[in-house]
């Protein structure tokens, strides 16, 4: 009898203290009060990568909309964003300011592979959520070693595999020529493509040409690729060189099956300058609605975005895909916060971010969904191939899911 009573008392004590502890935790979460959630961010508003700075601004505009609509569970988002000029030492300083001085609850959408690399360890030592980083590198999906860091967009290697799968399926006897930018971005694509080709890579790839981002033109590389007799062309170039490559290939009468990386899939910045006629039949892999593509003009996701842009970020360009990207990811962040309910502890933030199931975002392609789990920190891993018909991208084939196929 006495024993049971003691047990009851112990259990009661444990129960009460657990409750007290839980209450204390939610009250003491850094950066969260009854009326506010502090979110930190760094973006390159100046320096060589300042074209991306618009992402940081459109996110701020979206959070303002959320606050105007009443916030999240009664809490307003206090979004603090600093300029790091894309320089990693500055990122370290600004992120330490955010975490240690401003005391943000979490870090969101810090931009760039080198800046994020510089703070990767720090964030995980401090155990501060480092969510949905804006980079295409592969290393952010490593929940075992870096349980506080999570990526967002499909990485370049995944996309390379998408093209490889299509080449193997449709053109198994082709000769493949590749042009790539000689840096991590280009090599990541190349690796994904070669991995995807597997054994066939040695036999089918007849020529690889590279260029430096500082080169004035890539005309000679295109001529070499034509002379190699390649019938499939995998074009891993940024917009400036993509325009040149499409034009030059057209001018010298080279008509391979032309795979163009997603980086250069914009109608406004690549296909129109290169000439719509020359761009016909290009193939790319997409995961977002291309905002300059006329087929989305009456799409609800697109029109909502335009309305939002006009009201909250009128100075932002409507033909800049980065503004669509920032809008999408800000919506995802808001969703995670909502899902946390009243438990905004850092542990729960990570837990909720890692339990997204088939989430659709307004500017993702129909059918492409955000999925995460405690062992999968790569939110978007699906892409779909599209062919340019001279006016717009025609989606075709199934949605490629890197997670399922690997």
């Amino acid at each position, binding site marked *: 009898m006495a024993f049971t009573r003691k047990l009851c008392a112990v259990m009661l004590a444990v129960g009460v203290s657990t409750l007290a502890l839980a209450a204390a935790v939610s009250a003491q979460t850094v950066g969260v009060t009854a009326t506010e959630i502090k979110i930190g961010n760094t973006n390159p508003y100046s320096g060589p990568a300042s074209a991306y700075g618009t992402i940081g601004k459109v996110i701020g505009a979206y959070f303002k909309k959320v606050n105007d609509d009443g916030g999240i569970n009664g809490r307003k988002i206090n979004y603090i964003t600093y300029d790091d000029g894309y320089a990693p*030492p500055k990122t370290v300083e600004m992120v330490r*300011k955010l975490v240690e001085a401003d005391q943000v609850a979490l870090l969101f959408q810090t931009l760039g*592979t080198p800046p994020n*690399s510089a703070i990767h360890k720090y964030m995980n030592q401090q155990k501060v959520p480092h969510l949905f980083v804006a980079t295409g590198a592969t290393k952010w999906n490593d929940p075992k070693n870096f349980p506080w860091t999570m990526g967002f967009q499909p990485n370049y290697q995944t996309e390379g595999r998408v093209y490889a799968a299509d080449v193997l399926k449709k053109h198994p006897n082709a000769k493949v020529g590749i042009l790539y930018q000689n840096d991590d971005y280009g090599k990541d694509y190349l690796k994904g493509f070669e991995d995807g080709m597997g054994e066939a890579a040695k036999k089918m790839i007849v020529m690889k040409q590279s260029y430096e981002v500082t080169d004035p033109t890539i005309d000679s590389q295109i001529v070499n690729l034509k002379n190699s007799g390649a019938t499939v062309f995998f074009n891993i170039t940024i917009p400036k060189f993509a325009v040149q490559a499409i034009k030059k290939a057209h001018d010298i009468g080279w008509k391979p099956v032309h795979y163009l990386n997603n980086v250069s899939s914009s109608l406004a910045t690549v296909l129109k300058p290169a000439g719509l006629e020359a761009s016909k039949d290009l193939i790319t892999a997409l995961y977002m609605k291309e905002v300059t593509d006329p087929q989305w003009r009456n799409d609800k996701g697109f029109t909502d975005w335009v309305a939002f842009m006009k009201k909250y970020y009128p100075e932002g360009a409507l033909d800049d895909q980065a503004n669509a990207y920032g809008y999408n990811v800000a919506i995802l962040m808001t969703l995670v916060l909502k899902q946390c309910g009243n438990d905004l502890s850092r542990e729960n933030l990570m837990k909720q971010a890692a339990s997204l199931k088939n989430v659709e975002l307004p500017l993702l392609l129909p059918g492409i969904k955000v999925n995460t789990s405690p062992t999968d920190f790569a939110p978007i891993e699906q892409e779909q191939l599209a062919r340019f018909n001279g006016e717009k991208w025609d989606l075709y084939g199934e949605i490629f899911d890197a997670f399922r196929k690997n």
Partner: protein
Amino acid sequence: MTSRLPRLLGLLALAGVACALPFFLTNFRLFQFTQVYIYAIAILGLNMLTGYNGQFSLGHGAFYAIGAYVSAIMMDRWNVHYAWTIPVAGVLCLVVGFLFGLPALRLEGLYLALATFSLALAVPQILKYFEHWTGGSQGLVLNKPNAPFGLKLNPDQWLYFLTLAVLVLLFWLGANLMRGRVGRAVVAIRDNHIAAEAMGVNTSLYKSLVFGVSAAYTGVAGALSASVIAYVAPDSFNVFLSITLLIGAVIGGMASISGAIFGALFIQFVPNWAQDISKAAPWAIFGVFLIVFMYVMPFGIAGAIRLLWIRTRRSRVALSPEPRETAATQAPRAT
């Protein structure tokens, strides 16, 4: 002789404050001050070259990068203890700087500035080329060193003290170098190199040597930054870094040892204040700060302080019966 005592006391008081900071400031502030000291070392190096010797460099970011990468590669590839990498980085930059200084002898003024600028442009790209060593544009992730000998300091505090120690050592060396025979020769070359040559100064040797020493200081600063940031990447050392260092040297005060610290404080904190004042146009605000500083203190912060000091002493001298030699003859001059 009597003027030495207050100066010494002042320096001791400063050292005391610097040593006490880690126990009052947050780790973040401490990190910022560590960066100030690193910048100060780099700026002192640049100041020896530009301020004392009159050779313009827009490329010291390159030496900073070389120092950082030497340290990072030694730590990352060969597991060398970070403390050893700092002198090695300094010596290597000394050699590189000396060698670069030799052909640079033929270039004067603006042409030298352009030649060094090209160095600042080239180094980040060259770093990407040797990907096997440098990790390409992804850079190298390093470990932040812990305090040795079981000292009860966290890594931020330890790095602060380490940087402070290196700073004191290098400033002491630099001050002695510039105050002595070598320093006089270096300044003489700046003021009139024909006269200096006529006096028997080997101008080409001195110019190259100053270039080397200057690069060594900046390289040591770079090596320290590699440990403090615990990451190196080509993007860390863009052209803007070189220009920032020059801004620090000019704002702090050319041909001034203490000016390096003022300049470092300026380039560390003013951009942040500018950002706090206006998110929309921080660099415009920074520009306004720059112009105001240049207008109000044409000889830099150190020069302004010296002038103020001289003025207060003069007014005191005017009151005292016996005339004293003032430091007016040492008034700073622009180069």
